[in-house]
């Protein structure tokens, strides 16, 4: 196991100016310094100096933090706050201070390490959603179930009818000339819950002249586990993906989930002390060529749609896109490229929605307070559609809108682009037909 100590250079970089306080979602819930990035860094410093033992409250603070990294974006001193908190979480997890560690280990190690098991569980959930759930409600025994279980049920989006990795073949060629060869991560949640977003993503890539490679043996990227501290399992998963994606000669690996993209861009760092040189080099290469789909489309100069979509649209910045990957303008450019779209900027668009991986399940009450703020801002825009590029945010915002009882649709920017592409194609077809 790697040394669990956090380098003191990372900690002293914080000169406690306090610029992070106004953007921290948790500080703005309780106005307590220990729940701010500056306060947490100070606590971490005391822990690392050996002046404070790992206390319950310290553990609580490390998990109260959403790891949204909004503080990193505003930090003038360039403190890598995410590294500090994630480092402490690994320590807490490894040393056995996380009381939920065993449950997390059992659930996540079992469910995520194999695609097969994960999809099996998804199918069970699907069966439950389709029949048992309604039955339970019909005979009114849902009141007997534990509250937490009911919440998980409500928070979970509907499982897709067919999973994307079963629809999509390993290699797809574009109609015209191949401009780029790209790998595509189907992901875990995206694959079973939002498989249509994966299909949209692949179709958009094909439309833009990409030959798409979808390794059959790819697994979950490992980000969820890494973010609550189970670095061992995260590394195992990362290694599998590194090997699978390295089998092809690719210009880019395209990821449509902000959290996964952010983590795959860290693969290189994750293996920087790896003895196996080829693995280390492969990991570095994967990180180098991984691109968020918005970022990639913008870079290659995506095909501008020429059909009108008369829609009022707003955009929520996923934390792992805006704060971790610093991608904010590219998705907006894509949205604005569609003629007829009225784009309304969302107030506090880079403020976390409270999803934060499995935060909304583990800390439901805190998560809901944060979500409330997001939903209020969304409703103020009067938009018909909220776009966001991360499955966690997608499900969370969908849940919040449903609870608020409003009819606002949540979509991935790429799905909107694909609608425009499809309309273009059908109008071209009409034109051809009318000519004939």
């Amino acid at each position, binding site marked *: 196991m790697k040394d669990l100590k956090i380098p*003191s*250079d990372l900690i*002293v*970089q914080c*000169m*406690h*100016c*306090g*610029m992070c*306080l*106004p953007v921290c979602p948790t500080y703005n819930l309780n*106005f*307590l*310094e*220990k729940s*701010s990035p500056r*306060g947490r860094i*100070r*606590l971490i410093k*005391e822990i690392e100096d050996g002046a*404070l033992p790992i*206390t319950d*409250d*310290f553990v609580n*603070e490390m998990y109260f933090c959403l790891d949204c990294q909004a503080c990193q974006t505003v*930090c*003038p*001193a*360039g403190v890598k706050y995410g590294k500090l908190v994630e480092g402490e979480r690994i320590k807490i997890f490894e040393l056995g201070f996380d009381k939920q560690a065993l449950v997390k280990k059992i659930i996540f190690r079992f469910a995520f390490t194999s695609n097969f098991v994960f999809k099996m569980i998804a199918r069970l959930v699907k069966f439950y959603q389709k029949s048992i759930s309604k039955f339970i409600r019909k005979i009114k025994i849902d009141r007997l179930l534990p509250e937490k279980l009911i919440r998980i049920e409500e928070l979970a989006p509907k499982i897709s009818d067919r999973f994307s990795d079963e629809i999509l073949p390993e290699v797809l060629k574009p109609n015209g000339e191949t401009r780029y060869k790209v790998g595509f991560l189907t992901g875990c949640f995206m694959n079973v819950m939002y498989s249509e977003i994966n299909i949209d993503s692949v179709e958009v890539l094909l439309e833009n002249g990409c030959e798409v490679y979808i390794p059959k043996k790819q697994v979950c990227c490992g980000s969820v586990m890494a973010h609550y501290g189970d670095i061992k399992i995260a590394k195992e998963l990362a290694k599998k993906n590194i090997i699978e994606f390295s089998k092809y000669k690719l210009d880019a690996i395209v990821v449509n989930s902000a959290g996964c993209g952010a983590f795959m861009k860290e693969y290189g760092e994750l293996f920087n002390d790896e003895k196996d040189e080829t693995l280390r080099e492969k990991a570095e290469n994967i990180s180098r060529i991984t691109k968020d789909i918005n970022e990639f489309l913008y870079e290659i100069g995506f095909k501008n749609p020429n059909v009108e979509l008369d829609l009022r649209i707003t955009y929520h910045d996923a934390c792992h896109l805006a704060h971790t990957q610093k991608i904010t303008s590219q998705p907006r450019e894509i949205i604005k490229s569609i003629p007829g779209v009225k784009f309304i900027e969302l107030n506090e668009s880079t403020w976390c929605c409270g999803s934060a991986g499995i935060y909304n399940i583990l800390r439901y009450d805190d998560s809901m307070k944060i979500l409330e703020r997001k939903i209020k801002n969304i409703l103020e825009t009067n938009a018909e559609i909220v776009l966001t590029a991360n499955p966690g945010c997608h499900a969370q915002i969908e849940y919040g809108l449903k609870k608020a009882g409003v009819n606002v649709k949540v979509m991935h920017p790429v799905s909107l682009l694909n609608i425009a592409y499809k309309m273009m194609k059908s109008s071209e077809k009409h034109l051809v037909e009318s000519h004939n």
Partner: protein
Amino acid sequence: MDAKVIRQLEEIVGRERVLTSIENRIAYSYDATPAISSLPEAIVIPETPEHVSQILKLANEEKFIVVPRGSGTGLSGGSVPLSNSIVLLMNRWRKILEIDTENLTALVEPGVITAQLHQEVEKYGLFYPPDPGSMTISTIGGNVAENAGGLRGLKYGVTKNYVLGLEVVLPTGEIINIGGKNVKDVAGYNLKDVLIGSEGTLGVFTKILLKLIPKPQSSKTLLAFFNSIKDAGKTVADIIANHITPAILEFLDNTTIKCVEDYAHLGLPTNAGALLLIEVDGHPAQVEEETEKIEKICVKNGATDYKIAKSENEALKLKTARRAAFAALARVKPTTILEDATVPRSFVPEMVEKIQEIANKHKIIIGNFGHAGDGNLHPTALTDERDKEEMKRVEMAFDEVFDYAIRLGGTITGEHGVGLAKKKFLEKQFNEPAIEFMRNIKRVLDPNGILNTGKIFELKPRCEGRLPTSREQIKKYANLWT
């Protein structure tokens, strides 16, 4: 601290508003001042002026020190706890109670965030000019306690120019109201000017009445780059001499430009020797005319490049980056010791040059930036608090900086306050009777010394000379304590 006292505090504000856990105490052991920290015994969160009053009365009875705190962004250690002290946390007092659009005033609670007040009053076409660097999180209460300045000080003045009235809890627990909405008011002593800038040593503000002004109709933000600080300095002098008073007239030296660019990615030329950030505001015609004049002055003084912000958004980005300058300097070295030595503005070029000379002499890096237009400089030593030897040299360098500033008729602090960080320099600036005047005010208002005592100056006279060590020497003083 005695468990009995903690219980009494809990009785006043409620159990959940007295924090004593080690995690909370650590989190309130510091503010934004480098290298100063100390644990408080407890953190108390009052909800009403009456709570504050009762807490202060208890402090007088039980003899503990009360340290008021807003967001903890002060740069002189004013809100850092002392021994046997509690933190009086005011950051939840966030209500704007009234915006009077007829008399142009705002009545606020002390925990209102400065930038939020800006936003709210601007909705009514009004303007609250003071804009300290930390305005996105600093509280109005803290701004008044420190008499905070900011970028717009040159044209619009500082916090004290906008305080009309105060509700204050005195150290002995009485609640008083001073000032009001009157433009003219000479009844009695001008007490509010004693309290503004008193750094939390003379009273706790519970309501603050602020003066507002109409928002300028238009503004323009400009950037000019120079090969040397000297050229930039001459430009500043020429702008003032031409009777132009920009709202903002800031300079950044090369070190600071590099760090700010690394943080904000604005496309600043990192090889520029210095830059000036200038904002003119007012009637559109006047803004236009002054912009032209400034451009000519810049060109005349050898500006290598000159540009006008294209949009309000771009202007905002430039100003935000400037406000973050001091923390951005931490990118070079982790500890940034920021001072605010201020000189009459005609001496700015001379002072800047002297600071560089002192830095070279002591072999330390000093990044320099500041409010060139009003003489308020921010020489910032880039160091590492783990390197004790270098910290020593930094201290020696700043000793010389302050000496030189005072020689030029300047001050040891333009806007950060004395607090703990600059206590030992106060005697350089004032003679003993002047400091004794301050001490006497403190003694009268706070006879038990319970409110942030130990900041600004020592109340007890200092021990002069060497302490007696040999038995014979000590004998002479034996009757003093028997």
